[in-house]
Structure formats: structure tokens, C-alpha cells
């Protein structure tokens, strides 16, 4: 769900994954939760992210009818909830900027020169 917020970047989603260490965690299966989440997910982004973590079982495209299949739900569950990026980075698709991930926490803070601030820009000219 995160997107790159550097000023001027129009194509900041989805962020690509650079995986140094990934972890698989056991999460209770909840079909209703998955069905609720499905409309909010950018499917292609999920497929690409899962692939970077080494999981290739997801179909390239998905429709809501597929939610009736237990097999599909289990794969969706695994990719969405059980695969975790512990160490690595999220990479902006437009600028290549790396947002580091450490102990599972992404750091999305921008550097000062990545934030367009009109006053700051004008002041710096004097």
C-alpha cells in the first residue's frame, strides 16, 4: 500500500522489493477478511511483490469469482499475510530511490532535497 512520495514523482506505486531477508509467519486463515481485502488490492503489485520474495503460485490476473475457490484463497492468504520482508528495501519505480526496511519496519522519511518547499527554494536563492 505504500507509495513513493518524492515531489514530482507521478508514478510512485507500486514500490519494488529488494529482499535481503524475508520471513514466513504463520497467520490464521480468515476467508471473510481476504474477501473484504480483495477489492482494495492492486493484484499485479501483489503478484510482483510475492515473486520478489520467491513465491510464484499466484495467478497473473484475478477476478472476484476466484474468491469462491479455497485453493485460490489459500494462495492469496499466503502471499498477502504470511510473507514478510524483514531486511531489504522498497524501491521507487520512477526514481530508483531506496527506502530501507529494517526489522520489518520501512523508513519512508524523505531527505530535505526531496521535499519541494516553495519558501525553502526561494530562500535558498538569496
Amino acid at each position, binding site marked *: 500500500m*505504500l507509495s513513493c*512520495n518524492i515531489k514530482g514523482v507521478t508514478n510512485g506505486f507500486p514500490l519494488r522489493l529488494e529482499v535481503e531477508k524475508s520471513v514466513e509467519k504463520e*497467520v490464521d486463515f480468515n476467508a471473510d477478511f481476504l474477501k473484504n481485502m480483495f477489492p482494495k488490492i492492486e493484484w499485479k503489485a501483489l503478484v510482483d511483490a510475492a515473486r520478489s520474495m520467491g513465491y510464484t503460485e499466484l495467478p497473473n490476473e484475478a477476478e472476484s469469482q476466484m474468491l469462491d475457490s479455497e485453493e485460490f484463497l489459500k494462495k492469496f492468504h499466503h502471499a498477502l499475510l504470511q510473507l514478510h520482508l524483514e531486511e531489504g528495501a522498497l524501491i521507487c519505480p520512477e526514481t530508483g530511490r531506496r527506502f530501507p526496511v529494517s526489522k520489518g519496519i520501512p523508513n*519512508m522519511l524523505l531527505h530535505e532535497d526531496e521535499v519541494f518547499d516553495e519558501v*525553502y527554494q526561494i530562500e535558498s536563492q538569496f
Partner: protein
Amino acid sequence: MGKEGELQKGIAEFYDESSGIWEDIWGDHMHHGFYDPKLPASLSDHRSAQIRMIEEALAFAGVSEDLLKRPKSLVDVGCGIGGSSRYLARKYGAKCQAITLSPIQAQRAQALAASQGLADSVSFQVADALEQPFPDGKFDLVWSMESGEHMPDKTKFVSELARVAAPGATIIIVTWCHRDLSPSEGSLKPDEEKLLKKICDAYYLPAWCSTADYVNLLQSLSLQDIKSADWSEYVAPFWPAVIRSALTWKGVTSLFRTGWKTIKGALAMPLMMKGYNKNLIKFAIITCRKPE
């Protein structure tokens, strides 16, 4: 490093240093409790008061509990160690994203979520509320519980809240403000400014604004259903309780084990009480809805 960069660093370090001791004594909610003004509050009431604060805010904003209309995705802006995030995710069965400037808070928040079986519903990242790392219109509920006071640019803060809100979403801001200015006033009185400045230095707060300023900002963004209230009387028991907890043996020894930033913060607590008593500081709630 620019002024804003320094403020960010100060905020991150303040919470990195002090989160542990707060959690130790007060638990995982880092906000005021909501109290009945007519009843005395005992120490054991504070945790339920903090939960009541969340529920009262949701009720004030008119957030629906109905299965179809309730929020499914939420964002907690300035999440602390995730008390609100976990509570709201659990209450609505929703997915929650949360941001904080403090890496230690984010870590602790994620660990608590995992230990409570919520690792799949709540995720925390280190990020700036003025540059939220989310695409437009993602969240049904945008939640800012006592973080607004840290934002140096209120306009940017509020417009980011509006940006990430989905059409029809509810935005809830609970924050410290100074009193509204009367029509003839251009600014607060000098002694009022002086008191606020001392508090700002201790808590890494930039300049304060009034509740009316927030309402104007929301209006300028064409948000609808804008409501605001002064809840100062409902939080009155809070600071005296925090001061008392700091003065216990556990409080004092814990403070000495943290660092100067936390101690400075603790010493500034009576200033907060003074500000409330002078009707200078207001505990405000401001809510609105993004048009469909």
C-alpha cells in the same frame, strides 16, 4: 539540517527515549483519558478513560459500526506505539496503516501487534505525516490522536489527511490547541506566548494554532460536516495523574534511567496544567467528512 529536519529529529529522539517508560507506567495508549467531570478519577480508571477517549471521538464523528458502513481501511497518523491502531483494527475488523517518526516506537508497535495476533491487520512504518507514503484516497478513516501538535505546517498536515482520505471517509483530529482569538486580537497575549514557548521547547512542539484555525483549514479544503468541540473539562484529571505517577518511586527511578529529554518533558508537566487552568490550552476535537 534545516529547522524542520531538526524538529523531526527532536521528536523522534524524544519518543525513542521516553516511549518505554511511558508504556511501563501508563500502558500502550499515549493520549489523554476522557473523564466524567463530576466524578473523581482514581489511578485505576485511567486506562479505561483512554479507551473511552477513542470511543467518544468515534461517536462524536459519527463513525458507523454497521457491518457494511464501518471503515475497512484506516490510517493512524502519529501512532505512538500503536494503541489506537490495534484498538481500531480490532474493533472494526479492518486493516490499519500507521506512521510515526520514532523507529523505536514503530518497532515496539509491530511487536505488540504480533503478540496480540494483529500482525496481519496493522502495519507500522517510520514516515512523516507531512509527506504520507500513501496514494490518494486510500483510507475510510483517517485518525490523528494527539499528534497534530507536533506538526510544524498545519496546512500541509491537514491537506495530507484530506489527500489520503477516500471519498466519504471520516477524518478525526484530536489535538492540543490554544484558545480561539477574539475578533479584535491579532495574536495571543505576551505572557500566553511565553508559557506556550516553554512547553514547546520541552515537548518538541512547533507553534500552536487554535481550534478555529483547524476549522478554517478544513473548510478551505471543501470538507463537509465539519464539527469541533472543546473537551478540556473532560481531560482535566489527566495531567495531575501523570505528575503523580512521575513522582512515585517507580516514576522517579525510571526517569533517571531514561535521559535528559524525558526528564525535561516531565518537568514541563506543571506548565501544561497551568496552561489549561488559564484557559489558554484547549483539548480539541475536530472532525469532518470527505465528499463522496
